[in-house]
């Protein structure tokens, strides 16, 4: 139980609250977060609309190039993204290979426990397209989140007309999750210092349940106090926050290239689909 709690807290702190890569002086870090978000959206839409595995792979290469020039180790990036990709793709893609789900021209036939399984060309093609789509989309999402500070990313969502109050609420959740992570850590240390390392599992469950209740009560109290602090400084129901983003020529150049690359790949993908190239 102790290992689970401390492991989860440590993962949360390292992965969610670390701005290590967002603070580097790399290419994507120097781009206006709003423009970065739009560029990623352009690439994601291209991935969504293409029916060509090759186009998806090309966009994946573009993503890896952006990662490299943003001073993120490509090996580290691959490790980070490939944790999620099997979760989102393989379990869906594998059944799609077989004729049961995707009928078509058989390319391989085998038997498992007397059950005849047929992999079809259409199934393989669909599964490959699905996996490359997921791979590329997850990679763009990860590179965006790694090269942008979380609060900038949230603020950039205003570009898509997401209500300010929604963005501020998420930002505050993010802010206070950290505080509560620290509370959980400290509480855990305090319990350990008083009752030692070995605790019967039933007692442990009781302590955890009690702490969840205590944490919930604290967060409820804090919720009211924070609202008071906001009201005290002029909050009247519609928060006004700082907008200090600046768009520079390089941001527009990136957007232009993103558009150009996407349109070109979509065009080529269309040709590939009809077997002209």
């Amino acid at each position, binding site marked *: 139980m102790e290992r689970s709690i401390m492991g989860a807290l440590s993962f949360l702190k390292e992965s969610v609250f670390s701005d290590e890569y967002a603070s580097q002086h790399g290419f994507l870090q120097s781009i206006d977060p709003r423009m970065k978000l739009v560029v990623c959206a352009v690439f994601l839409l291209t991935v969504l609309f293409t029916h060509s595995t090759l186009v998806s792979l090309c966009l994946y290469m573009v993503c890896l190039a952006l990662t490299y020039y943003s001073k993120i180790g490509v090996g580290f990036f691959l490790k980070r993204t490939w944790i999620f990709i099997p979760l989102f793709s393989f379990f869906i893609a594998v059944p799609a290979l077989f004729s049961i789900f995707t009928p078509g021209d058989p390319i391989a036939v085998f038997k498992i426990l007397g059950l005849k399984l047929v992999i079809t060309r259409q199934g393989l093609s669909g599964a490959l397209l699905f996996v490359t789509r997921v791979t590329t989309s997850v990679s763009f999402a990860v590179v965006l989140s790694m090269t942008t500070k979380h609060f900038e990313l949230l603020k950039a969502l205003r570009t898509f007309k997401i209500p300010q109050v929604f963005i501020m609420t998420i930002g505050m959740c993010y*802010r206070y999750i950290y505080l509560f992570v620290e509370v959980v850590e400290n509480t855990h240390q305090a319990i350990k210092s008083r009752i030692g390392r070995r605790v019967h599992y039933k007692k442990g469950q009781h302590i955890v349940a009690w702490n969840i209740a205590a944490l919930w009560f604290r967060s409820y109290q804090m919720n009211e*106090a924070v609202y*008071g602090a906001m009201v*005290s400084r002029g909050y*009247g129901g519609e928060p006004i926050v*700082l907008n*200090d983003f600046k768009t520079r020529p390089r941001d527009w150049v990136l957007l232009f290239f993103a558009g150009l690359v996407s349109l070109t790949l979509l065009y080529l993908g269309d040709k590939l689909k009809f077997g002209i190239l």
Partner: protein
Amino acid sequence: MTDVLFELKNVHFSYLGRYQALCGIDIAIEKGQRVAVIGANGSGKSTLLHLLDGLIFPDKGSVRSFGAELSEETLADEKRNHDFRRKVGLVFQNPDIQLFCPTVKEEVMFGPLNFGLDHITITSAFNSIMDLFDIKELSGRMPHQLSIGEKRKVAMASVLISSPDVLLLDEPTAGLDPKTSRDLVALLNRYHSEGRTIVTATHDMHIVEEIADVVYVFSRDKKIIRSGPPAEIMSDIRFLQENNLIHIHAHAHGDKTHVHPHDHPSHEHDHKSSV
């Protein structure tokens, strides 16, 4: 005739209708006055400040501010609410409550932005306040990356940037190192010299005489048991001991151990009580 900014008459307040926090409080705070509110833990100091800031309202009794009643109904008026919030600033005891924005810069600018000030005024005020607290390098940091002293400075800056006429401070020196505490006292006195009213709730007996013209002492039963000039109250050692505001302190000088009240404004003390 004196200009009374806040007038509390027979104010009672309880949390959840059960836990009494203030009992029959009568206070009048004049313009430009420096008020210190002292008392043991749980004596109602923070509740009083929240009441003065119009965040909570009494169960019984009346609160008047700037010549008008201060209540939920009067603050429902947008203009009155806006004027009141601009004039009164509260620095909370727990800076984590006050620092709800993602970065220090946004935190400090939150007040002026929500008061509708123009961008040039805000930028200029921001630069001045960050220089004043010497926290310019913290501008892009997130609150969880700050030490307690830095958080407290940012919390102060986020209120002072709006230049409120009345400054309410809840335990402003808690968790601060001695040098920063001294700087804070100097800053408060500078603000006072500009004609501002300052109300400070504190446990820090060292600073009371420097930051107050009048002291209110709260008892454990949530009442004001004494008020008056700080010199008079701070010199009544027995009274302070009875109310948990100072304690007897034993320490050694060479081979001699002696006891004396923990708080002594000047650091010299006699050794008559040596044991």
